């Protein structure tokens, strides 16, 4: 049975979790150590971390992939030196509490052929921005804030559910088909066309048996990646690339778990604008949200369209944000809302 404990490390305000037992007899300290983007380590770096866990801690490590951090249990009395040791190998404790938290990127271009933008670089850009840095090192928010970067709609970084703001690589229109290669793969029996057509959730694919031609209707394609991951590289993501922005997803929040809302696209070469966009997203939430409201909770309370307006976000491809109509035929309505419906009817009245 653990309770929140306390630990003091000079000038380090976030990045560790202190625990004590209820009777106060035992305390623990856990460091949240930032992992490099993509979480790929040379064994040399890994061994250095292992040494630190041995020398300053209990030799116990949690490979917490989802959070982008490694958690190392540290002996409280050695905490200060452990920080120095971590810094000497090029990493540090990251964030805890109501701050900008773990930033996570999928492995992207480092090992994955689907990557539609450089997710690792995007994450690193965030880490090196002074403002993000300040938010990461101090607890200044109503609740925690996470950003995640996925290279394609497979969303390996879990940007749609586990990030307050998520950036997901997508393309516009239909996937690109290398017809020659595709035919070859079909003839050799490597690909089963019928299956590919059937597995497309948007029914966008058709196969002309006679002409041996594959057609994909770009306007219907839901970017499910089903055909691409089956037939790659004969079917690839389309050439025109975008980064879809989702906001408000979270696991732990006032109104329970939620998926993020899509609010529009950035261009892949504007990924540096992602930082600026994130500031806009944070501003109204930081100013107005009650304690322990995640961004998604705040959006639920304000309404997505109002939130976008308050944040001053104007993105290409911004969707219609209205919700599904209510099933309950009664509500307490503010005057402005009633007036809008009245105006709608007024406009229709004159028509023949």
């Amino acid at each position: 049975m653990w309770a929140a404990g306390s630990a003091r490390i000079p000038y380090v305000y976030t990045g560790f979790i202190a625990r004590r037992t209820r009777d106060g007899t035992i305390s623990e300290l856990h460091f949240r150590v930032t992992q490099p983007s993509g979480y790929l380590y040379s064994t040399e770096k890994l061994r250095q971390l292992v040494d630190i866990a041995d020398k300053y801690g209990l030799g116990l490590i949690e490979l917490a992939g989802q959070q982008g951090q490694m958690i190392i249990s540290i002996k409280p009395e050695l905490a200060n030196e452990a920080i120095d040791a971590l810094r000497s190998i090029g990493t540090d404790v990251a964030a805890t509490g109501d701050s900008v938290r773990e930033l996570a990127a999928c492995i992207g271009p480092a090992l994955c052929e689907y990557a539609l933008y450089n997710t690792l670089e995007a994450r690193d850009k965030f880490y090196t921005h002074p403002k993000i840095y300040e938010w990461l090192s101090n607890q200044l928010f109503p609740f925690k804030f996470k950003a995640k970067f996925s290279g394609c709609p497979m969303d390996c970084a879990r940007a749609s559910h586990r990030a307050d703001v998520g950036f997901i690589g997508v393309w516009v229109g239909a996937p690109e088909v290398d017809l020659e290669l595709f035919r070859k793969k079909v003839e050799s029996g490597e690909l089963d066309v019928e299956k590919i057509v059937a597995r497309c959730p948007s029914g966008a694919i058709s196969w002309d048996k006679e002409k041996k031609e594959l057609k994909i209707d770009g306007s219907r394609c839901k970017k499910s990646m089903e055909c691409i991951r089956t037939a790659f590289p004969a079917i690839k993501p389309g050439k025109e690339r975008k980064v879809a922005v989702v906001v408000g997803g979270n696991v732990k929040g006032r109104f329970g778990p939620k998926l993020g809302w899509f609010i529009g696209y950035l261009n892949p070469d504007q990924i540096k604008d992602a930082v600026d966009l994130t500031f806009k997203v944070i501003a109204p939430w930081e100013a107005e949200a009650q304690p322990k409201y995640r961004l998604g909770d705040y959006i639920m309370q304000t309404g997505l369209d109002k939130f976008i307006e308050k944040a001053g976000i104007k993105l290409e491809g911004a969707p219609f944000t209205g919700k599904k109509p209510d099933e309950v035929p009664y509500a307490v309505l503010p005057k402005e809302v009633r007036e809008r419906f009245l105006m709608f009817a007024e406009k229709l009245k004159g028509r023949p």
Partner: protein
Amino acid sequence: MTSPKAARLQKVFPVELEKFLPEKVLKNYGKWVDRKYHGYGIIEHISETGDRVFTVKVSMPPNARISADTLEKFADVADKLGIGAVRVTMAGNLEILTDSLDKALKIKEEVEKMGFPVGGWGGALWGINSCTAYLTCTTAVVDSPSITKALGDALAPYFSEGGLPAKLRVFVSGCPALCAGGTAIDIAIVGQWGAPPRIREDVIGMCLPPPKALAKVKEAQIFLVQVCPTGALSLRREGDKVKLTLIGEKCINCARCKENCDAFDYDPEDVGVAILVGGKMSNTGGGARLARVLIPWLPANPPRYEEIVAVVKHIVEVWKQHANPGERLADFIDRVGWAKFIELAGLQDIFNYYQQVPEFARTFLHYRGMGEVPKRLRDAL
């Protein structure tokens, strides 16, 4: 010059990727063109330069918590048989990188000798994620790592030998805070209080303004009142004293109060888990969605958690028997519909009995059973 304080304030981030990435990966950065699968757990990444990197995916213990010694042994394997690099996956598995299939198979052999299974790709169990629960957490009501262990033992063959229609991942969280990864997943197991908590009167003062101030501060400004999403926590006047009270009828067992203050206790008798199914995160198939509650409450009986294991195995079996090849649990349920799925799972009688008021009349949280449901469910099972 920067002062020692300023220097100390400056955190260091591992952003110089060249220092962390192995040479072979750096050389082929952004140049990957194809991949091949060699059984469950070994993937060949093919670069346009002709280079190849093989990743061997190794399952980690519950909560991905391992000793420094073990990690060092993996580093040894990666040096001896690999290209001197490992990767921690999003899901807390460990991938060892190498440059030939031959070596990849040897790595597999080696780590299996150490007792760690290799697998988790394609129509297989990709892993079970567990939060830390009692290891470090202040809110836990069930011991998720040991549930993960029990489940892992029961489902292990699916990890290394596949045999499932599509990917399966399980998240086990010790309480509704969902630290194992949320509910957008095939199967989520979530610790439940089962009944509203009790306030520990002797320590609740720690989380409130001092008594005199408490009488003056507006209720809406009390942190714990703000934190509770339903207004179950409110201030009551008792004589000349103001007290924080918990209205059981309003409480939805969301655990938000306990997360923020260690002055709430639950009754071990009521504690259990909910099992949610049919969520997923990626945009494949019908897209990302949250799972729904199939079983609102089951007891968590250590060490083998027979009830939970039996139900999860049953769900997997139903899915296995009725799903099309390549169909995730979520997409399968989508196709047949929830009513049919509940029927296939043999839960229709209980669901007829476990009627909930319409969604709009409840809160946003789906955790709440009605009144006596946990107890009655326990009797029914």
